[in-house]
């Protein structure tokens, strides 16, 4: 060979540099033109195949127990192993799954739940009323209440009785007209069989467990005895945990996984540029700023309103989520029928904020905002907030603590902080966050008019009456509340073009709440 090693090295280097710049240029080129987001519903479903999901957000603390599900990624396993009495459609509206019918008495103090017949658990046992009673007694176990216990606290679990093999009577200690909505929240009514063994978990879901290594990998196989005829399409699901987005996106681009979850907006063009698709959902989850209203600075309602007025919401969405997502109006429960869309959208108004500060004698206000990397974009949103508030002369010092510290002993006691919530209906969310008895009343909200309205609403079986009352409650929150809700974050997932059956969902969990029974590979 006449080619010397030296020349070879030179040529190789030059070649790789050329390829390198080419790659960079094409990446920049696609950055400006984001393609339309399509849901992958076209084409005829096909049976068979293994769906490989690369998911972030997992850890060794991951659980398969539906009663203990906490993180977004926990639901990737739970939503396929188990099924709820009531679930959510992609439009975030309640739909009966295991339940056939829910009926209440006139005062909403007693419910009768009838479940569907002929449904079996993965171990062959038939689903019956006993399993429903067992599940709720586990959730509401006073010694070890599950996360859902706070939202279902009105249910008198001890008093639940079996009317026949498929019917349960559910007495409630206080009226509970929104039981159906509450049960629809992910993880609130997933049914486990009597004598559930967390080490060998079985549910009624479309897939049964094959293996589970927390924080590493889990596999599921098609359940042949699944009750919804023709489903699922896939033979197997392999969920692999990814430590961060870089390796996750690399795996998608290299064809090692078919679907990925929880992407940030800045990788959209990279993913699309390499021929993969983006599933963009307008989630109903919300990441509020929480102002504690019972002590300190934010006891003064004028200062709370000033803080809400300094936020440039569209700009915050642009900077934190690349402009995707939905602008918020300091109210939660955006997809709920009770959500009040008639209240005027709040815009940034520095002049009014300044005059409120002046009236309160708090010009040049100093506050500390406690933030942590608890959900996508929280820390960035805190920094943007600090920047925007400075226009009104408010000095916000951002205290970025660890997630453990954030949820440690000071959680629910911070003066000014953030939090994240998955989508919930309006009144069930109130019972968790804005009542003196609520478990997560992080703003320490306690308004007597509001409390009595809630008591009326929760007893109103008539939905239109309930909505009317709920609107008055939202009016109060809009004018005096301790939450700043600037946006509802988008949910951005990625998938290969050969994955069919994925639709955007408003639930706020990734990949249409990980509903893999409707997914196929072509």
């Amino acid at each position: 060979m006449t080619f010397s090693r030296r020349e070879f090295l030179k040529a190789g280097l030059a070649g790789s540099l050329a390829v390198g710049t080419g790659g960079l240029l094409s990446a920049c080129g696609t950055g400006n033109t984001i393609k339309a987001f399509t849901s992958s519903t076209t084409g005829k479903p096909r049976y068979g195949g293994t769906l490989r999901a690369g998911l972030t957000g997992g850890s060794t603390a991951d659980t398969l127990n539906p009663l203990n599900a906490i993180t977004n990624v926990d639901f990737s396993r739970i939503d396929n192993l188990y099924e709820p009495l009531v679930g959510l459609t992609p439009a975030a509206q309640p739909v009966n799954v295991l339940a056939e019918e829910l009926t209440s008495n006139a005062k909403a103090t007693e419910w009768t739940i009838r479940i569907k017949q002929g449904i079996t658990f993965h171990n062959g046992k038939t689903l019956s009323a006993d399993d429903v009673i067992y599940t709720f007694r586990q959730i509401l176990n006073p010694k070890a209440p599950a996360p859902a216990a706070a939202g279902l606290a009105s249910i008198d679990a001890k008093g639940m009785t079996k009317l026949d093999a498929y019917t349960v009577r559910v007495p409630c200690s206080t009226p509970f007209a929104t039981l159906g909505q509450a049960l629809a929240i992910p993880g609130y009514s997933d049914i486990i069989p009597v004598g559930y063994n967390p080490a060998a978990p079985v549910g009624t879901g479309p897939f049964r467990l094959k293996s589970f290594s927390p924080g590493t990998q889990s596999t599921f196989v098609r359940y042949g005895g699944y009750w919804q005829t023709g489903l699922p399409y896939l033979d197997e699901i392999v969920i692999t945990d990814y430590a961060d987005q870089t390796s996750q996106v690399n795996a998608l681009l290299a064809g090692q996984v078919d679907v990925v979850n929880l992407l940030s907006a800045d990788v959209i063009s990279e993913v699309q540029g390499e021929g993969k698709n983006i599933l963009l959902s307008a989630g109903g989850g919300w990441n509020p700023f929480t102002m504690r209203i019972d002590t300190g600075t934010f006891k003064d309602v004028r200062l709370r309103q000033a803080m809400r007025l300094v936020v440039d919401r569209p700009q915050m969405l642009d900077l934190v989520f690349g402009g995707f997502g939905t602008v918020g109006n300091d109210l939660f429960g955006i997809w709920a029928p009770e959500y009040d869309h008639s209240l005027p959208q709040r815009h940034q108004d520095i002049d009014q904020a300044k005059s409120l500060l002046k009236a309160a004698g708090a010009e040049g206000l100093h506050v500390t905002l406690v933030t942590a990397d608890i959900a996508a974009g929280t820390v960035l949103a805190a920094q943007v907030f600090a920047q925007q508030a400075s226009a009104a002369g408010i000095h916000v010092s951002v205290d970025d603590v660890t997630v453990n510290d954030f949820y440690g002993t000071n959680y629910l006691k911070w003066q000014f902080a953030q939090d994240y919530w998955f989508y919930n209906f309006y009144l069930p969310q109130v019972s968790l966050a804005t009542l003196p008895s609520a478990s997560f009343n992080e703003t320490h909200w306690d308004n007597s008019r509001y409390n009595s309205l809630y008591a009326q609403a929760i007893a109103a079986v008539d939905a239109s009456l309930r909505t009317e009352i709920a609107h008055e409650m939202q009016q109060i929150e809009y004018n005096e509340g301790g939450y700043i809700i600037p946006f509802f974050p988008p949910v951005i997932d990625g998938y290969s073009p050969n994955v069919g059956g994925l639709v955007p969902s408003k639930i706020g969990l990734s990949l249409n709440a990980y509903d893999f029974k409707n997914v196929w590979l072509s």
Partner: protein
Amino acid sequence: MTTVTEAPERVGPPSKAARPHPIRNLLIKRSLIGILTLVLVSILVFAATQTLPGNAASAVLLNTATPQRLHALEVQLGLTRPAVDQYWTWLTGVLHGNFGTSLANGQPVGTLIGGRILNSLVLVIVAGAIGTLIGVGLGVLAAARRDSVLDHVLSVTALAVTALPEFVVAVVLVIFFAAVVIHWFPAVSVFVPGTAPWSNPKELVLPVATLVIVVVPYVFRMMRASMIDALESDYVQMARLKGVPKWRVLLFHALPNAIAPTIQVIGLTFLYLAGGVVVVEYLFNYPGLGQALVSAVSDRDIPQIQAIVLVLAAFYIAVNILTDVISLAVSPRRRLPRS
């Protein structure tokens, strides 16, 4: 830097009874110190975990951590007991071969990290071995052709690569060989839990290549420097004057004397690899110890942190002892009692 410039003297063997066994003595002494070091490390790490904000209960419960739920889980996990008490329970467990159960998921720590130890070990040993061979080979080559164009190219390249952190090397490799330009190798290393890493050789290529690229320059530079010293020595000149073939001078006269300082660098390389795998495992999603440690720290999973740190510390101690033993073995002069 140690320079070996003189030929080893020939000394008659001492009488058998009086002859000390330096390697055995070193092994015994250093092993005892090593065990003491491990105990101290475990105390330090335990103390460090106590000062971290939050605990395993808040890491598990996240935003469902109401005071009642937090307290209940803390009691269940034994986190409300005094720290000394917790440490003592852990230590007595370890002495009985029981590393405890994970605070995050209740599984035994041994089964959680057993497979990961193997995965990381394979990564470190394969990368270390390949890196050492390439580094030593190129070092000898550069020294033999000192001041040639090849030598300059290698030296400048080595210097440039030294300045690149692992994550840059890894990202460049992924872009070129996995995700964007050509799709030869997997971009991430995913194996089914329970399978050995060598049954998925393709998954090992890029993580190993990253580590090799990062460690070769160090070995190369050390090897080149000590080889040049050796080549300038009197005994090499003597050998050349006697007409010994050039390759023989290089491999049998100069190399054995130049390798001793390089062994120390190779030892350091392996120690560096034990730490360097953390970043590489994270980037390639390689299911090893580094990744588990990152996860355990964020979960405040003390038994798992303790076990992983002890494994890493034991590896450090073992490599240090091994390096010294090999150094002794290749330089007979140092085995003699000092006079």
